[in-house]
C-alpha cells in the first residue's frame, strides 16, 4: 500500500512537472519498464530497486540539491508501447531515462532518446544494444558479449562438456544470447547437438524438453526469461532430466527459484549480479529491499538501484544537469563503493556504455542460490 502511494505521488508529480518553479527544485527522471506482461518480473524488480535508491537520495537532499521526480510507465512488455512511452516522456524533457529492461524494447526505443540526446540507463543484455554507436545508452548489467565467454569457459573447464544443447527464447534477448553462446561454443570445440527455440510467454515446454533430452548432450544451456525458465525447469524435473542445467544469471535468479521450487535445485551457471554475492554492501542492500518490499530482490532490482546511484555520481562529478555532458562524462568512468556506496560493487562503463565488474559462478542448493566462485572484472 505504501509503495502504491509513493508510486501514485511520483506519477502525479512527474505528469504535472511543467512549471518552471517545480523544475528548478526537482530533476525529472522517468522510468519506462515492463510492469506487466512477460517481463513483469524483471520490470517490477528493476522498478523497486530504483524507487529505493530514489527515496534514499531524496531523503538526503537529492542530486545537487534537487530532488528526483520519477514517473513510472508500463511497456506491457511490448516493444511498440515502449517506443511510444519514450516518445511521451521526451516531451517533458527528462534529464535521463531509465529502462526498458527487455532488449527488444531497448533496441526499438533507444534511437528516440539518442536523437533527443538524452542518456538511457537500460536493463537489456542483448549484445546489439551497445554495438550501434549510440553514445547515450548505458547498461546496468553485462552485455552478452561479456557474459557468454564466462559461461563458455565454465562449461568447458568446470562441467568439462564436449556436447551441449541450447534452449533459448525467440526474442532479441534470446536470439542475441544464443548467437553469442554458439559462437563461444564453436571456438572452444564444444559441439552444439540441439538448438531449440521457444516463444516468449510459452506455457508448455513438454515437447521442448523431449527434444532436448533426445539430444543426449553433456550439458543443457537455458537462456529464457524468468517465467519461461521456471516452467522449463518444472517440466525438465517432471520428465526426469538428469543432465547438468546451465544458465546465465536469469536461470539462477530468485524469482525463477521461487517459481520452479525444487526443480531449480542443481542448476548452475554464471551470475552477473545477485543478492547472494559474498559482498557485505550487497547483502545489506538485499535485507533493506526485502524489509521494504517483502520479497527477495533479483538481479534486476540491483540493476535499478545501482543505476540511480550511477546517475547521481556522474551528475555530481559534472556539477550540473546537462544530459549531453552526462553521456560524455559517463564513458570510461569507474565508480568504487568508497566513492559512491550505493554502487555496491566497483563498476566501469566503457566507451560503448558497456559495464564491467566482478561476477560470480553459482549453483542452486536446497532452493537457495549459492555462490561458489567470484570472477574478476574483465578489465583486470
Amino acid at each position, binding site marked *: 500500500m505504501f509503495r502504491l502511494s509513493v508510486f501514485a505521488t511520483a506519477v502525479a508529480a512527474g505528469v504535472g512537472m511543467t512549471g518552471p518553479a517545480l523544475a528548478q527544485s526537482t530533476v525529472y527522471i522517468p522510468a519506462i519498464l515492463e510492469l506487466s506482461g512477460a517481463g513483469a*518480473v524483471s520490470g*517490477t524488480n528493476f522498478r523497486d530497486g530504483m524507487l529505493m535508491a530514489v527515496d534514499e537520495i531524496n531523503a538526503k537532499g537529492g542530486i545537487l540539491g534537487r530532488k528526483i521526480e520519477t514517473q513510472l510507465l508500463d511497456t506491457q512488455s511490448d516493444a511498440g508501447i515502449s517506443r511510444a512511452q519514450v516518445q511521451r516522456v521526451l516531451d517533458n524533457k527528462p534529464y535521463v531515462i531509465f529502462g526498458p529492461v527487455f532488449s527488444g524494447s531497448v533496441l526499438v526505443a533507444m534511437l528516440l532518446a539518442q536523437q533527443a540526446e538524452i542518456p538511457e540507463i537500460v536493463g537489456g543484455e542483448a549484445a546489439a544494444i551497445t554495438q550501434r554507436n549510440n553514445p547515450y545508452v548505458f547498461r546496468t548489467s553485462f552485455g552478452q558479449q561479456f557474459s557468454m565467454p564466462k559461461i563458455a569457459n565454465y562449461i568447458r573447464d568446470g562441467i568439462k562438456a564436449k556436447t551441449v544443447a541450447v534452449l533459448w527464447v525467440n526474442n532479441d534477448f534470446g536470439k542475441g544470447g544464443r548467437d553469442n553462446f554458439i559462437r563461444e561454443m564453436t571456438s572452444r570445440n564444444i559441439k552444439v547437438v540441439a538448438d531449440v527455440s521457444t516463444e516468449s510467454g510459452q506455457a508448455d515446454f*513438454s*515437447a521442448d524438453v*523431449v*527434444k532436448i533430452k533426445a539430444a543426449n548432450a553433456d550439458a543443457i544451456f537455458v537462456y529464457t526469461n524468468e517465467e519461461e525458465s521456471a516452467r522449463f525447469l518444472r517440466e525438465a524435473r*517432471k520428465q*526426469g532430466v538428469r543432465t547438468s542445467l546451465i544458465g546465465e544469471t536469469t536461470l539462477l535468479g530468485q524469482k525463477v527459484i*521461487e*517459481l520452479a521450487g525444487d526443480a531449480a535445485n542443481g542448476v548452475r551457471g554464471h551470475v552477473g549480479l545477485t543478492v547472494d554475492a559474498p559482498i557485505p554492501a550487497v547483502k545489506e542492500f538485499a535485507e533493506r529491499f526485502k524489509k521494504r518490499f517483502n520479497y527477495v530482490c533479483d538481479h534486476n532490482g540491483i540493476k535499478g538501484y545501482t543505476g540511480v546511484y550511477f546517475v547521481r555520481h556522474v551528475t555530481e562529478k559534472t556539477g550540473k544537469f546537462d544530459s549531453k555532458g552526462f553521456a560524455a562524462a559517463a564513458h570510461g568512468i569507474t565508480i568504487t563503493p568508497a566513492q559512491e556506496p550505493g554502487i555496491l560493487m566497483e563498476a566501469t562503463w566503457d566507451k560503448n556504455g558497456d559495464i564491467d565488474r566482478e561476477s560470480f559462478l553459482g549453483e542452486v542448493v536446497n532452493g537457495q542460490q549459492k555462490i561458489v566462485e567470484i570472477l574478476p572484472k574483465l578489465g583486470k
Partner: protein
Amino acid sequence: MASFIQLLISGLATGAIYALIAVGFTLLWQTSQTINFAQGEFVMLPAFFILASMNAGAPFWLAALIGIALSIVVLGLMFKLIIVDPMLKYGVLPLVISTIALSIFLKESVKDFYSSQAQPFPALVPATDVHVFDAVVSTQSLAVLAVAIVTVAALHLLLHSTRLGRSMQATAQNPTLARILGIPVQRMVLYTFLINGMLVAIASILISPIYLAKFTNGETLGVAAFLAAIIGGFNQVRGAILGGVILGVLDNLSAAYISSQYRGAFPLLILIAIILWRPQGLLGRIEERTV
C-alpha cells in the same frame, strides 16, 4: 519410440485439460446459446481463489475445495444471473460482446488486485517418474490424465445415466418440448452453468502447476478450448473431448517433430480443414434452423 510415448502421454494430459474446458464451452452453448469468450479467464481465476485461500492459511486440499466452491458460485451462478440472463434476450452477439468484456475485466482485476507476476502453484502429486517401455513418464502427467478422465466419465454418467442428465439433454435439444414435458428448463440451464464452474475449477487445478498461475493464462486456454470445441463439434460433448485431445497431442507432436516456431499454426490449419470439409466438426451434427 521413447520420445514418442512421452510426447503422446504429455499431449494427452494437456489435451484432457483442454477437453474439460471445451466441454464446459459446449454445455453452455447447447443449453443457453452462450458463447463464453471469457472461458479462458474462467480457468485462470480459480487458481487465484486457491492461492488466496492458501495465503489465508488453508492447506492445499481445503483451498482446492474452496476454489471449486467459489468457482461454482461466482463463475456459475453469478455469471448466469448477472451477465447471461439480462443479455440473452438481446441475442447471441450482445452476449458474446459481454463475455469479451468480462474476460478483460477478470484479467485486469487479477493483475491489479493480486499480481502481474506468475505465481507458483502446487502440483497434485510429487514429481516422480514411471518407466513405460523405454520412456520416462511423469506421475504428474498421469495424475492430470487420471483426474481429467474421471471427471469426464462422471459427467458422462450424469448426462446419460441419470434422470437429471437426461432432463438437461432434453433441455439442450429442445427447450420448448422439454418445458411441455414438465422439465424445469431454467433450473436445468442453471445446472449447466454450475457444472461449467466446477469444470473450469478442476481444469485450473490441473493446468496451473504447468503454466504457473498468471493473469494472462486465459488467453491461451480460451483459444484452445474454442478451437477444440469447433474441431470436435460445437454441439456435442464427446466432440469437445475429442477436439481437446487432438489439440493437445497435435501441439506436442508438431512442436517436437515439425517446428516449435510454427506450433501455434498447426491447430489453425486443422481448424481451416474442418471448416472446409466438415463444418459441423468431427463428431458434431448438422443443425437446421428455420427462419
